[in-house]
């Protein structure tokens, strides 16, 4: 994967497969340790202990049409080669939390990528789920919820072009606001 937004999109797709009603991506920059937490959590069907134990193995997948599942292993590898760590917590019926930690200044840390586009497209493609994005850096915080946006839009779908365009800019502004800074460290 070329950037963090693609990893996030990939892991969020797992949440949709688990019939999640809430899918939340949180990016938490911790200036005191120089680390960035990328957390994807959902309230989907979750995994039992047996599946959880093997889920980071690339030869594990719930699909029946092929034998490999690379989404989680790639995310894990990406975090670990960036001086970070990876963990996944899940319970049957209680959802899943995937947490990858990256060293912000590590040369192997992927850039942020088009996170605004990813979140907007997810919101448009899964109108039945609440797609949330939370960004935090020091004291600054940005929050987005597709359910909130859908509430304001009434009968206008999240997939409407004018809406997609506006949401992209709105979330992009949020990213700039929180991570922009002078050095724009996260997005590079």
């Amino acid at each position, binding site marked *: 994967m070329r950037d963090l937004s693609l990893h996030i999109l*990939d892991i969020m797709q797992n949440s949709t497969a688990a019939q999640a009603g809430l899918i939340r991506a949180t990016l938490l920059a911790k200036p005191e340790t120089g680390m960035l937490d990328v957390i994807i959590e959902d309230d989907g069907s979750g995994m039992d202990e047996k599946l959880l134990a093997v889920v980071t193995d690339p030869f594990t997948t719930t699909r029946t049409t092929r034998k490999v599942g*690379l989404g989680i292993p790639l995310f894990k590898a990406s975090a670990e080669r960036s001086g970070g760590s990876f963990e996944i917590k899940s319970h049957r019926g209680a959802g899943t939390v995937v947490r990858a930690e990256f060293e912000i200044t590590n040369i192997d840390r992927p850039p942020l990528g088009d996170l605004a586009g990813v979140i907007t*497209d997810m919101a448009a493609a899964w109108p039945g789920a609440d797609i949330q994005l939370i960004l935090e850096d020091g004291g600054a915080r940005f929050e987005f919820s597709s359910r909130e*946006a859908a509430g*304001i839009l009434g*009968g*206008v779908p999240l997939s409407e072009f004018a809406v997609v365009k*506006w949401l992209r800019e*709105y979330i992009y502004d949020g990213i700039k606001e929180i991570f922009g800074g002078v050095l724009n460290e996260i997005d590079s």
Partner: protein
Amino acid sequence: MKSIAELEAIRNKTLDEIKMRKNKDGIRVVVGMATCGIAAGARPVMNAFVEELGKRQLRDVSVTMTGCIGVCRLEPIVEVFDAAGSKVTYVKMTAEKAARVVTEHIVNGRVCTDLTIGTALNEG
């Protein structure tokens, strides 16, 4: 900084227009967006579809994503469903090819046969 409440203005602007096209069954563009698709570049392909369709104001066409379509080696894969539900599968897509599919297939109704899965499989 923008406020989420600004969406209300968009709502008021587009609501009437949506009602007018409510009964019209449109074309559906579905982009494979699993690990294989994403790694092969499905994101720029999807962006190109959204942009091209938006540019031409083709409002009856929807763009959405799905999981793995099953032929990972031919990703990025895009399926185009017409109003009757029949499907054309395009493989090894790029942003440039997406623009072509919009003009030739979606606007003019001519399937880009050279980009379809049938052609790719015959060529091996």
